[in-house]
Structures are given as structure tokens and as C-alpha cells.
């Protein structure tokens, strides 16, 4: 019983670390820039398919593919912000139209993936997938451990970028006081553009990690919408360290529920937690009031 429990907690922590990679980009866009990029998880799936293609044709390592494509996604993200800015933010219509815009974008990406790849599950091959380390009775499947390590490193990198560099601090500032940032001589539009670039870049890495953990098909992204938003809200909107903590909490909660009650209830965990948080503590568990 205790063995089962400890194994469930460990695999929850590993899973949670990966969730942090998915939620990281959303934490930047939604938490800091106030851009409700509901298409983020679908962009993660898009990244996963890129990893799939390159792994299938050249046998490259998925993590490597994710890291190489991060700059490409950075540019895509900047382009996306341009469209968003000129169509909605400049005219002050971001609330309703902006939401619907990303909702539509989500569908376009998803359907394009379905039309290209079909709805079959796809997976990648790498030497470490399928191996398991054992420490005592605790299992560390490398399929989960490698994504966990990469995700935590990426999250910490973003954390230090945000808190230590000028660019990163400017991103934190633009969400707090746009005018003050302008007075400091930084252009809010450029700052936000690079922030969305970073957010989308993390999606490339998260996608590569996702396809290591589980086989994917285009609509898998929808399950991550709720998880990612739950993590961002629980983590206190835009706090990177809070996002990591919340991701671990959600991962462990899901793992415990699926071990002791059955996997079919797992999707409800994050959404249930999200609803409860919104109802009773909207600033998030790790957020300041």
C-alpha cells in the first residue's frame, strides 16, 4: 500500500514537472501579458508533430528537436503577436474578439493536423524510452524522468531570465505598469512581442517532451487546455515559480486519483481544482491577494 502510494506520488511529480513545461508558456501569455492564448496547448501538439516527423525521418532525438525548433517557434510567436496587436489590442477589442481569435486558431491548427496526419496515435523512438531506473522499490521510468528534467531546467531558465535580465524584467514590468515601462525607455509592444515569442518557444520543447511521454493524436491538446489554465491560475497568474509548484500539485493529484480511483476520473481533477480555486481563491494558491 505504502509502496503503491509512494510510487504514485513519484510518478505524479515526474508528470507534474512536464505539466510545468506546458503551462509555462501560458503563464507568460495569460498570466503576464493578459493574452488568453487558448491555442497554446494545440501549439504544443504542433511542436510534438514536428518532433514526430524529424524523429521518424532522421532518427533525431526528440529533446534535441524541441530545443532546435524553439527559436523557430520564437519567431512564429512574434508573428502571432503582430497579428494579435494590429487586429485586437490596438483597437481595444482583445477581450471578446481576442478570445474568439485564439479559439478559431486552435481549430485551424487542430484540423490541419488531422487532415495531414489523420487521427492515428503517433509516437517517437529514442534509446531511453522503455528503460526504467529503480531506486529501492520506487520506479523512475526514463520516459517520464527525461521530460521531467528537461522541463524543470527550462522552467528554471525562464525563471532566471525573467528575474535577472533586463529583457525579462521588462516583461514582468509590462504586465504591471505599461506606462512606467514606457517612461523607462522600453517599447511595450516590442517587449510583449518577445514575451509571446518566448512563450511559443517553450511550446516547441513541451511538444517534444509530450510525445516522449505518450503517443499523441491531434485532439490530445484539448485535455491540456484545462490542465494548463488550472496550473496558471493555481500558481497565481504569471508567477513562474508558482507555475512549477502548481504543476507538481496537479501532477500528484492526478496520479493519486488515477491510481486509486481509476484513470477515467483523472481529467476531472485539474478542472475540479480549477473551479474550486476560481470560486474560493481566485488569486491562486501560490498567489498574493
Amino acid at each position: 500500500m505504502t509502496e503503491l502510494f509512494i510510487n504514485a506520488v513519484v510518478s505524479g511529480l515526474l508528470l507534474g514537472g512536464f505539466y510545468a513545461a506546458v503551462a509555462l508558456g501560458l503563464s507568460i501569455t495569460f498570466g503576464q501579458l493578459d493574452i488568453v492564448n487558448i491555442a497554446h496547448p494545440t501549439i504544443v501538439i504542433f511542436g510534438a508533430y514536428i518532433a514526430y516527423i524529424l524523429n521518424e525521418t532522421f532518427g533525431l532525438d526528440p529533446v534535441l528537436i524541441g530545443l532546435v525548433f524553439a527559436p523557430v517557434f520564437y519567431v512564429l510567436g512574434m508573428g502571432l503577436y503582430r497579428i494579435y496587436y494590429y487586429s485586437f489590442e490596438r483597437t481595444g477589442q482583445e477581450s471578446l474578439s481576442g478570445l474568439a481569435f485564439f479559439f478559431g486558431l486552435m481549430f485551424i491548427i487542430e484540423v490541419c493536423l488531422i487532415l495531414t496526419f489523420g487521427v492515428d496515435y503517433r509516437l517517437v523512438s529514442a534509446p531511453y524510452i522503455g528503460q526504467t531506473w529503480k531506486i529501492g522499490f520506487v520506479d523512475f521510468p526514463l520516459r517520464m524522468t527525461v521530460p521531467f528534467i528537461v522541463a524543470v531546467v527550462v522552467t528554471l531558465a525562464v525563471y532566471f531570465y525573467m528575474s535577472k535580465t533586463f529583457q525579462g524584467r521588462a516583461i514582468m514590468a509590462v504586465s504591471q505598469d505599461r506606462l512606467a515601462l514606457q517612461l523607462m525607455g522600453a517599447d511595450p509592444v516590442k517587449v510583449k512581442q518577445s514575451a509571446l515569442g518566448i512563450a511559443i518557444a517553450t511550446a516547441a520543447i513541451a511538444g517534444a517532451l509530450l510525445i516522449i511521454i505518450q503517443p499523441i493524436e491531434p485532439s490530445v491538446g484539448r485535455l491540456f487546455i484545462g490542465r494548463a489554465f488550472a496550473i496558471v491560475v493555481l500558481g497565481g497568474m504569471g508567477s513562474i515559480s508558482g507555475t512549477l509548484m502548481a504543476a507538481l500539485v496537479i501532477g500528484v493529484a492526478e496520479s493519486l486519483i488515477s491510481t486509486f480511483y481509476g484513470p477515467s476520473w483523472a481529467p476531472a481533477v485539474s478542472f475540479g481544482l480549477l473551479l474550486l480555486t476560481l470560486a474560493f481563491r481566485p488569486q491562486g494558491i501560490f498567489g498574493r491577494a
Partner: protein
Amino acid sequence: MKINGFWIGVLIVLALGYAFTFFVDNEFYFFAVYVVLQGLIMAVAWNVLGGFTGYVNFGSAGFFAVGVYTSIALNKAFALPLPLIIVASACICGLIGLGTGYLTLRLKGVYFAIATLAMAIVFETVANNWEYVGGAAGTYVLQPENSFFFDSYVEFLFMVMVILAVFATALSRYLSISKIGQGLAAIRDDETAAECMGVPTLRLKLISASIMGGLMGIAGAPFPFFISFVDPLSAFSLLIAVNAIAMPMIGGTAYWYGPVIGALLLGTIQEITTVTISSELNLLVVGSLLVAFITLAPQGIAGLIHDLKNGRQKAKDKSHG
């Protein structure tokens, strides 16, 4: 004058619907029009909250599916007649709308959007695990023998849908032209200012959230009898959620007739693409139209019509003055 025009239109639509059951034999047309009307009710319902107040509901499919499953459960347990089932679904979904609204409508609009999305997934998980109504495997629903005054149950369902669509449209029109509608528009434009002017914003938002939920429940209630096999995938269909947003956005959210125009247009296009090409392409069409409209014509078709009218009026005024 204007009120008469609307009610004459209502009578004409009802009469046309009834005549349709007499003169059309091919059942396909009933199915096609049924789907369009279902989209219309969902679009009108979404617009009551989304269009009038600016609070986006992403979980339309959740409300719809609660209507569907209420219907299945009541039919299985008590074999109630359809009209009673519809009323019950409307009440339950209305209460869910009220509850969600009560918990999240005091926060920023984004939280409501996410909460509705989350709720849809929670309901889907419950439906997947609730064996009584079929669970993940789904369940068959037999159409009742009694089809009232119609030749077949499909014709009866079709007429029910026509009446419900007219009811939903009339209700949303009433909301938008009444004092409530003015309050809702004030919330959409500037919630703080509205609150300061004494508009009871929370109460108005809760009213429209309940009506939205109720109308979505109505749209879902007849669905199990219509498709006769329901599983969570079909009840929580993605297309329903997208359409509920895309139709009003394309038609124009600020006017009560916007979602009607959007639903008729988009619904018909979808029926044609589904039949002639494929259902995946259908989703792509909706998504692209949605993105194209919100970036290029955020006021939708109704807004374009409105601008055209105003433009003409201005041109007229100029030539006279």
C-alpha cells in the same frame, strides 16, 4: 410597427415549418434543417451572455450535453413526454448557468471563460463514468411510438425544433430591446461605469447566464431522440462548442438577429460541405471563417448591414441638407 413585423415573421416561419412537414418527403432535409436549427438555438443562447454582456462561454457543449443527458435519464426513468423533458432540461441547465455565473461572474471575464471550459470537461468525465446513461460506451434511445399529429417522429421533432428556435429568438430579442438589454449593453461597454450609474450588474449577468444555460438545455433535450444513439463524444461534440461561438461572431454579436443570420448562413454552409466534401474540412471552414471575421469584420454581418444602412442614411441626409 416593428413589433408587428417581428411577430408576423414568427407566424410565417411557424407556418412554413408546418407546411414543410407536409410537402417534403425526403427525411434528409428534416435532419439537415434540424441540425441548422439546433445550431441556431445554441448560437442565440450563447449570444444572450457572450454577445450582450461580453462574457465568453467556452463550455457550450457542456450545457448542451447536460440537456442531452437529463433527457436520456428522464426518458429512461419515467418515460416522460418530450415537452416536459425539455422544460426539465431547461431548468437544470439554467440552474447550472446561474451557479457558474454566481461563482465566477464577479471575476474578470476570462475566468468565466475558463470556468465554463473546465465545467464542460468535468461533465464529460462524469458522463463517461455514469453507467446509468450509457457511460463511455454510449446508449441507444428509442423514439416513442406516438408522433402526435405528424406522419413520423422525425417530423414531430422537426416541428418542435422550429418552435424552440422561434422561442429562443423571441426571448433573445425581448432581452435586447427591453430595459434588461440596455443594462447588459452597458455592462459590455463599461462595467464599472454601469455599476456606478446604478445598473445592478451582477443580477443582470446572472439573469442572462441562467437564460443562456436554459436555452442550451432546450437545444440538447430533443437530441437523443433525434440521433437515437448517444455517447459522450457526440454529446460533447467539438463542433457544437465551436459553432455556438462562431455563429454569433460571424453574424454579429451586438444585435439579436446577428446569431440568427450567422447560424442560418454557417449552418447551411456546413451541411453542404459535410455532404459534398468531408466533416473535417467542415471544421476547418468554421475555424477559418471565424478567424477571418473577427480580424476583418469584428462587428459581423449584422454590423456590416448596420453600417451600410447608416452610411446610406448619412448620404441621404447630406443630399437633402
